[in-house]
């Protein structure tokens, strides 16, 4: 049985689809990155998975329990951080976490012991201070502590490191890396480097549609198989790459001595390109391009950096 499952989740406002027929299922341990530009439908999905918003169509299940039929049981073993939540501002950090512990059925002794653990782990701010008086980053750490308080088996995080400084981000990243060994984490993030470091799987979403759902390594190789990086010991004038015409679909300069060559992916073409490159100059290395998640993201979703807008391109599901 999948721990997290979305079945044709759809959220419609009039004729606008914030989320359109999204389906996925995840089981076991590990971390899943949920990626997409602003307005893609990431937070809408996570809200519907946590009963903060109701689907127009479709269903969300956690451990086989319909979130919108029995939210209490469905969310019992789930920690969440959705859209920079804030405890009630009049509550102290301790009071906020004790309330969460009480509602989650923890004994006061367990809650206090756990707060002490998390204080060290997350470098929590002075917990006797009202949360309304804390900085955004401090409040975010309290909120993350609340999501981890009961040591849940499933953790759903929406931009968890938003508002945190680099040191705090590293701390959260290390915690998530540790937790994913025994927990299932679904997290949205704009920080692709963060997702690459933490996540084993990635889901790309844009304009309410899931475009791709695969392991990070599979996505990298999927987009790397038609590209090869060649590095020379000295700079090569770009015009000399005319020699590759008929073999390469495109050549781009990565560094003064390194070029990325796009081709049809066939082995014989790759061998022919290598021969031509050797003719062009002394080759230091010749290897398949290892694309990062960021490259896959850019290819799949497409970015018009000049206009600052993102547009959808045809993707795979």
């Amino acid at each position, binding site marked *: 049985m999948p721990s997290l499952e979305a079945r044709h989740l759809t959220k419609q406002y009039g004729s606008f689809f914030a989320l359109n027929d999204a389906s996925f299922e995840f089981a076991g341990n590990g971390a899943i990155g949920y990626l997409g530009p602003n307005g893609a439908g990431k937070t809408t999905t996570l*809200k519907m998975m*946590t*009963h*903060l*918003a*109701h689907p127009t169509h479709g269903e969300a299940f956690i451990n086989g329990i319909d979130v919108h039929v029995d*939210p*209490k*049981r*469905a*969310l*019992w073993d*789930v920690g*969440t951080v*959705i*859209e*920079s*939540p*804030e*405890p*009630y*501002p*009049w*509550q102290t950090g301790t*009071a*906020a976490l004790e*309330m*969460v512990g*009480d*509602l*989650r*059925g*923890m004994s006061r002794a*367990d809650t206090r012991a*756990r707060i002490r653990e998390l204080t060290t782990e997350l470098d929590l701010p002075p917990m006797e201070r009202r949360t309304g008086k804390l900085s955004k980053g401090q409040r975010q750490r309290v*909120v993350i502590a*609340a999501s981890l308080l*009961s*040591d849940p088996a499933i953790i759903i995080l929406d931009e968890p490191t938003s508002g945190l400084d680099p040191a705090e981000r590293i701390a959260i990243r290390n915690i998530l890396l540790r937790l994913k060994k025994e927990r299932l984490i679904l997290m949205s993030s704009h920080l692709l480097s963060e997702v690459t470091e933490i996540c084993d799987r990635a889901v790309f979403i844009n304009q309410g549609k899931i475009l791709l759902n695969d392991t990070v390594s599979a996505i990298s190789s999927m987009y790397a198989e038609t590209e090869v990086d060649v590095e020379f010991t000295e700079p090569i004038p770009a015009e000399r790459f005319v020699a590759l015409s008929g073999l390469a679909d495109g050549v781009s300069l990565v560094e003064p001595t390194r070029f990325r060559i796009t081709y049809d992916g066939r082995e014989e073409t790759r061998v022919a390109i290598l021969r031509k490159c050797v003719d062009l100059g002394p080759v230091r290395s010749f290897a398949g391009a290892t694309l990062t998640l960021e490259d896959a993201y850019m290819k799949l979703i497409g970015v018009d950096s000049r206009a600052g807008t993102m547009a959808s391109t045809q993707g795979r599901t």
Partner: protein
Amino acid sequence: MARSIVSDWSQFKVAVRTQIAGYVQTSRFWIVFAIVLAIGGGISIAFMIKGGVFVHGAFGATATAYIAGLLGFVSFLSIVTGALFGGDAISTDFGTKSGFFTLALPVKRRILLGGRFVAAFLVSVLLLSIFYAFALFGGIYFYSFGTVPWFNLALAYLLDMLLLLGILAFAFCLSSVSKSPAIGLVVTILVLLVVFNIMDAILTALVGPVYILWSILYAAAAIPTTVEYGLAAGSPALWQSTIIMALYTVIFLAIALVLYDRQET
């Protein structure tokens, strides 16, 4: 950390406790407390200074008149109390980011709202009981134990509790309309103190007394203490007041629960 799912009742108690802590730790509790002390204490001190003879009219002629005079403020106090403790009951989750913190927890929303309602009621009862204590002890101190209209006072107290329930249910319901907690509080007070009175005046002029309107509802709380002087024209009977207030409570609380359950963050 093995945990079994806790009962709704346990979570309800947490909700009540948390909300009461919230009221006490914010200024609103102390604002109402100060108003109660100012009115109850102010009038008592004025009586002490004047030796039990109030300077204006028959306000202090008898223990009943004294108590009735003081309880004349009860409707105002109930509205302020209800608005302050109920006017942001729902908007506090949907108008701020607190909802993202609370509503994703494994707890039924109706349990949370029910807990808030009971907390608001308990805190309101506490504050209004202090005011009633001024009336009671003032009656005993300035007149005599035997002259206090015990039955009327008890009846007024019970009716005021019903009135509080009605006002709180109405305020809870209204708090779902506004996204801003502050606006919710102001709108609730304006509607209860101004809009309903205007509507009541207009409708009364057009079709005569209309018992379903708010002014009738809160006037009802003073009935027991006005027995001595006769009911005001157009006032409902005791049973009618009770039914009206019960209906306000049930209908508006039910609407508030449905809205809270369905609203999205």
